[in-house]
């Protein structure tokens, strides 16, 4: 009898000990949750390394809320990764009262969204595909916003010997002749489209997920962003084409050198396109126009002109509102 009593008493003690452990853990969770909600409801300036939002000069009067405040903007990973869109969207929302839902996919995917009416406005950089998009009647008011450029990068050893060449197409020919690994996005993004167009000029046909691609032509596929591809190329000492801003922002972790730059075909041109409201009744046409006007406004273009100077020593984008593509080609 006595032994069973002790066993029961021990089990009860274990129960009490576990009970107090649970109470302590519950208390910690409640405190944590309380802390989170208190601080999250405060409106402090964000201090994360990703973006430091500028102090905006908003007018003293309250901004009128638009009838349909939600705008879905489909854009590309390069505009997101540079941090430029975070800055611009913040200002746009404060100035106009619209609520932006920015979705960053590739230019091809963004245009797909526009085709199905799942986005209101696009900010993309795949000119050939955009022209087709407009011709098919999916978009209206395609306006040039800004540009930067692509560069061909590769390992410092440069086995194909393309460093300093001024013609991108000739440089790629040397890479293909030497059969050195070339890494492609392979995801129908603007970068991917540009790169494939250069191979086409050489007469080498490469396609996404094709089994007939040359053995040295390696694709990342959808989901491999520009930075991921650069890291792969860096690890495997291969060549690739990248936009300058992604390269600049991550140079320190890559062992890749800039080999070819300045060729006019390497221009990376961004357009803003409003999704055609005639196709879909639930597209936010007013919102799309407001955003398009905002991107082309003098104030925004001034921000674009200086974005990146303090962090990288040079601007990441060049503002181009009002110009035509032909004018850019001559620069």
């Amino acid at each position, binding site marked *: 009898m006595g032994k069973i009593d002790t066993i029961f008493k021990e*089990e009860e003690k*274990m*129960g009490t000990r*576990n*009970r107090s*452990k*649970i109470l302590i*853990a*519950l208390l*910690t*969770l409640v405190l*944590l*949750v309380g*802390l*989170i*909600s208190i*601080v*999250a409801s*405060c*409106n*402090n300036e*964000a*201090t*994360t*390394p*990703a973006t430091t939002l500028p102090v905006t000069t908003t007018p003293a009067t309250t901004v009128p809320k638009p009838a349909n405040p*939600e705008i*879905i903007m489909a854009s590309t*990973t390069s505009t*997101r*990764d540079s*941090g430029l869109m*975070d800055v611009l969207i913040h200002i746009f929302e404060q100035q106009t009262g619209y609520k932006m*839902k*920015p*979705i960053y996919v590739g230019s091809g995917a963004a245009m797909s969204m526009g085709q*199905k*009416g*799942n*986005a209101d406005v696009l900010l993309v950089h795949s000119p050939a595909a955009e022209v087709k998009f407009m011709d098919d009647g999916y978009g209206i008011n395609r306006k040039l916003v800004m540009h930067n450029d692509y560069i061909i990068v590769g390992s410092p050893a440069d086995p194909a010997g393309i460093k300093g060449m001024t013609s991108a197409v000739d440089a790629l020919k040397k890479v293909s002749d030497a059969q050195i690994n070339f890494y492609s996005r392979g995801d129908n993004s603007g970068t991917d489209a540009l790169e494939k167009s250069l191979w086409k000029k050489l007469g080498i046909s490469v396609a996404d997920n094709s089994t007939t691609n040359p053995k040295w032509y390696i694709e990342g596929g959808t989901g491999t*962003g520009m*930075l*991921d591809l650069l890291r792969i190329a860096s690890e495997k000492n291969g060549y690739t084409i990248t936009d300058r801003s992604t390269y600049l*922002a*991550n140079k320190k*972790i890559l062992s890749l050198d800039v080999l070819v730059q300045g060729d006019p075909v390497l221009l990376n041109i961004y357009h803003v396109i409003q999704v055609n409201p005639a196709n*879909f009744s*639930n*597209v936010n046409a007013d919102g799309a126009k407001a955003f398009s006007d905002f991107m082309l406004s003098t104030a925004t273009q001034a921000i674009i002109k200086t974005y990146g100077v303090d962090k990288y020593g040079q601007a990441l984008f060049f503002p181009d509102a009002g110009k035509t593509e032909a004018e850019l080609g001559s620069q």
Partner: protein
Amino acid sequence: MGMIFDGIKQAFLLLIHGDPQVLKIAWLSLLVSGSATVCSLCVGIPLGAVLGLSRFPGRRFVASLINTGMGLPPVVVGLVVSIFLWRNGPLGILHIMYTPAAMVIAQFIIAMPIVAGFTMAATQQLDPKLRLQILSLGASRVQLVWILLKEARLPLLAAIMAGFGAIISEVGASMMVGGNIMGQTRVLTTAIVGENSKGEFAYAIALSIILMALVFLVNFILTMVQQRAKAR
């Protein structure tokens, strides 16, 4: 290696200074996954109990569907939910695409079969004589199920932890239906992917540490509750 230490340091700094963006992201993670878990319990436990305790034609087929659902790939769920919730999808007029509500729906679909599957197994392994005993004491149908569920407390709590664990850590569906929009649908997992693709590795590691700490805390409490049941 230095990056991991940087990440740990940054995690502490972010939490101590109460960085509002990080706290907002963490809070949304808890809110979305917590709500989805609660909803999946409300549907999954009764469903699992019915499947485990009753007999009807086609029961085994439904059971195999539930078990398949336990292995449902989150990205597939995200894709299908997206197709329904897109502007021009069948449920587009609800305007819940790219909102936390859409994420809760997707996570509910992922967690519910897990909870139901575990509950089904838990109720099936109860001694059938126990059911007879309870009925002989005059219990109603509802009382019977309630007592049986209490008996199966151990595996049931495992079900809750499995369901919560699956959705707090998933990123595919949350990314697709949420869009990782800062201040609106950014949760810890999607933020980690986003920061990683921007090259902000230390920040991504910091967020990972915070995520794992949160998951550990929740599971610690649930485990204590579960193991206390055993001490009887």
